[in-house]
């Protein structure tokens, strides 16, 4: 079973992403922000990461940079959750090593579409 980590300071988003992915047969690890995510990644390796960009402590772009530094996670797909107004953030995230993005708000099937596409 593939394991996916969802990182978001909003419980609503974590819950929705978690529901959708578990329903589709993925294992889900939740993290509240970048720092939390990095800690959990040390203990639990994942196949894919879905992260919000605006978060306290360590934001999404920072998290992506850190994750890519770790040889174990150099090549995992990372999807950013962005909003339409965050075009510059999106670019920053891509440069940091994100694989793709989903624009909030999104529907469960959009999320699943992207996950299934990117996760080989």
């Amino acid at each position: 079973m593939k394991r996916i980590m969802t990182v978001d300071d909003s419980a609503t988003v974590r819950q929705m992403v978690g529901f959708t992915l578990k329903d589709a047969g993925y294992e889900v690890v939740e993290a509240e922000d970048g720092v939390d995510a990095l800690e959990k990644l040390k203990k639990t390796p994942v196949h894919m990461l879905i992260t919000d960009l605006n978060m306290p402590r360590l934001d999404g772009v920072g998290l992506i940079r850190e994750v890519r530094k770790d040889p174990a996670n150099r090549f995992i797909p990372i999807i950013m959750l962005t909003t339409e107004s965050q075009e510059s953030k999106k670019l920053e995230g891509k440069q940091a090593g994100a694989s793709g993005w989903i624009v909030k708000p999104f529907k469960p099937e959009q999320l699943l579409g992207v996950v299934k596409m990117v996760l080989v």
Partner: protein
Amino acid sequence: MSDPVRDAFREESAELLLDLENGLLELAESQDDDEIIGRIFRILHTIKGSGGMAGFEDVSAFAHEIEAIFEEVRNGHLEVSRELLNQTLAARDLLKAMIDDEGESSLRQEEARQLTEALRTFFPQTNETAISAEVSDDVVESREETTERLYRIRFRLAPDIFCKGVNPLYLIRELKQLGRCRVIAQVDEIPTLQEFDAEQCYVCWDLILLTSAGLNAIRDVFIFVEDDCELQIDELSFDDDEDPNRLGEILVERGDLSSDDLQAVLSERHKIGELLVEKNLVSSSSVDSALVEQEEVRLQQKRNSAGTSSIRVRSEKLDLLVDLIGELVTVQARLSQNVAGQTESELCNISEEVERLTWALRDQVLNIRMLPIGTTFSKFKRLVHDLSQELGKSVQLVTDGAETELDKTVIDRLHDPLVHLIRNCIDHGLESPQQRQTAGKPSMGTVHLSAIHAGAYVIIKVEDDGIGLDAEALREKGIAMGLIPANSELGDKELFSLILQPGFSTAKSVTSVSGRGVGMDVVRQEVESLRGTIEIESREGAGTCFSIKLPLTLAIIDGLLVNIGGDNFVMPLSAVEECIELDHRTVEKAHGRNLVHVRGEIVPYVRLRDFFEIHGPLPELEQVVIVEVEGERVGFAVDYVVGEHQTVIKALGKLYRHLQGISGATILGDGTVALILDLAGLSKLAEREEKELSA
């Protein structure tokens, strides 16, 4: 109402709103604390994002407005003021009410609108930067396209693409899901093991994809990598009309080879792929990839042609075949005529058999020349599009009966007249969008092009829902031009047909498209030369309809064989309405005017015997064939009507091409020649002659 996501959002937002309130109050104390501003911004951003996901669209949209203000604050474009904080606090309270669903929703909406306006006044400039948060559906999109197209997709990913968590296999897998896909990897750039870096992507790909999904669906696959990818998508044509591109041409088109190099190598006449590789002009994998494309295109061509299973024949060959059938029909008629007097039953049987087969063969051969008119129709789509742009009118073309079949020659010759009619409809017929709206019509005008079979005819209609013809204006213009007498009482139909006269135009202005009065008479001439007629119907304010009635084929027609003084003539049966007898008493009563009474209607007639100056004994009873010419009834007096005759039309020689009143000739069963009468031409000639006589 126990939606877990909504509940989670309510719980979460209660906390966030409390934090927001605290943050705003703290900010009132220390007005330029970036940390607090950042926190407020983030809270608003979260409420906006989560609210939208949990189905609180109004909350999300309103939070967006507040967030937009704080973005300005965060970027240092806007100073925090007491006023701003008060408004934001009010907005926070409203957000809370919205989430908890307190109070009247219409009142809340009104409040939200007022607060939004108040907040917008804080923007440093007055430009409209606010974008409302919309639910974007661009990942899941429905597409409706059924025709399959062949695409060549070449992509080369950035070498560091693996470090972005992108596995190129997912791109290929996604493309494969769109349709039939051949994948060719170009591996030339993989270096030797010493130089090889396992984290780099050295391979690029060529794909040949047969899909009905459309170009956008293909582009969507590459959406996450478009900045890290050289992507080239070309549609490959596999029309039956075109030969599949040769290998060299494919390489040139793809930019792998210059056409000069190709020409140079081609002149050596060896197997092109091997040669190009030998000469190091292209790599062998490029050639392999191009070969796959060639194979795929050929395969599609083969499939296409297998689907319809047709062969292409030069139309001259068909013309020859039709000529031969014509001869056969003639010979067969002779056979039947000779056998008719015989008593031997065996010979009669054979003759009947031959007759049956001849007719079947004739029908089949004429059928081969039939083409659906749809190909011509589809050309007009572009015309309508261009014209509507040029004239600033919005026009849609609706076509019906594209499958209606018509003789190829007829279709070819019909093209120009139809173009002219459509131009006229759009330029003169249809009003401008504003005029249409005032008239209570949809602002988009419609041109309706249709074709239907009606017996041995095809009726093609060009119809618009525009302004219609003004019968009175036509009458005035007609009188002014001397085309009709001032006191004439003409019906609408006759008035409408005035526009088919040379030089007739009521257009107030001449546009580049139409209005010079040149053309409608040419349309009529062309239609008549195809043995067709044109009729106009119109209702003022509701539109105009041009109906063109054409015979199915030009080569063989049903004719009415008549005899005058021992000579045979053929009239196209399609024009004939009835035959009546003409006795001497009627002629005498008419006092030298050629008029007959047909059930109360007076019909003028032409004495063909006089017209052609044929002498010889006059029969007791003559016959008048009443025909319809351009909407009018005209009679032609002949000695006697022989009967129906399958007429194979033979063109008159060059010498007789300009002969008026005769449109061709045919050979009868006994080998004699009968002339085919051009009834419209004859009645005009006769009219002119009469005028000259009376003048």
